[in-house]
């Protein structure tokens, strides 16, 4: 189990201390990470490590901007493996990532 490790005060600061903007950004993150997750899964199915790395890169950046450390870390690992052309560990990391994204669905 990986901890989500969300730094809410950082995320709020990033949103210019505006709760509404924070909520919008989280919504956007939920949408975009769902789409990136699908890209990672397709990438694994197609043995396309570049696609996996690119989608993980996108999740990594967005998670970092919103202070969601747990996701940033898993996405960083995924990107690194993908860039090295190594897809072996991706399924394990995917399980972690999906669990964390479920948690994100519930945060406010």
């Amino acid at each position, binding site marked *: 189990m990986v901890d989500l490790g969300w730094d809410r005060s950082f995320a709020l*600061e*990033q949103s210019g201390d505006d709760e509404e903007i924070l909520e919008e*950004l989280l919504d956007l993150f939920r*949408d975009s990470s769902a*789409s990136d997750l699908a890209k990672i899964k397709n990438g694994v199915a197609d043995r396309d490590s*570049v696609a996996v790395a*690119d989608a993980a890169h996108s999740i990594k*950046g967005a998670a970092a*901007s919103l202070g969601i450390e747990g996701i940033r870390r898993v996405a960083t690992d995924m990107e690194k493996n993908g*860039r090295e052309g190594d897809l072996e560990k991706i399924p394990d990391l995917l399980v972690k990532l999906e669990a964390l994204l479920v948690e994100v669905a519930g945060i406010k």
Partner: protein
Amino acid sequence: MPTAKEIVGKFSELKTLPHVAIKVGKLANNENSTMSDFEEIIKLDPVLVTRLLRLVNSPYFGLVQKIESISKAVVFTGMKQLRNLVAIESLRGMFKGGVEGEFSPQKLWLHSATVAILAEMIAKRIFGQEAEDVFLAGIIHDIGLIVEFQIVGDQLREACLEFKNGKGTIIECEQRCIGTDHSEVGYLLAKGWNLPDEVLKGIKTHHYTEKKKAVSSMGSILQLAEFMAAKMNYWPVPGPIEPLPADLARHVKNMMANYKIIIRDVPQEMEKAKELYAADE
């Protein structure tokens, strides 16, 4: 003959990179920058905001939702991508002007965009690198030609003519007619723009003919991308295609299958990125 430094000095008196581009470059290099830092600087230029949002929402990024603010753009494209878009918008205007002799600024812009896209693909697919800095280097790598075009235009046209007539590489012809060349001039100009060192080194070394840099370095990636762009006829100055240095040629031979896939995918990537390099309306 004027030195590279004098040429750059004169050019800088005429044209400067907008303040906002330099500031954004600085922010993108700093890990502690926040998205509101970007928003604050960029919003001072409403035209830039509109243009950036158009690019962020273009197919190149393939985002699921429409992005309506700069801070959201930072989150979903990343700081370095946003820096690249600001650079594109700032540089686009420098590549204006009609064809004179053998030199066309518009062709050079299209060439730069092609090299940026190819370099990004090579960095990611062949070397497993992150590619934001490589993309920026691709956009800027030939800026020295624009400087020469503006400041020592006659000599540049002469150099281009010599190049076309097979009297040496473009660098050799520039050295003979101008006394310096676009990699040196471009490097000196870009040095004042707060760009990452790797990008500057890439500009400086992208025409090295001897084995002086690693195959996976930015200069080599630019050289590979430029070679492929030339083969695809995206070459700004008509003339013979410069062969790759021996170590890079060997590398391509060994990785031919991977490069063939890149060549297959380039048109699609170019189409996706069309709005990035489309000329001003």
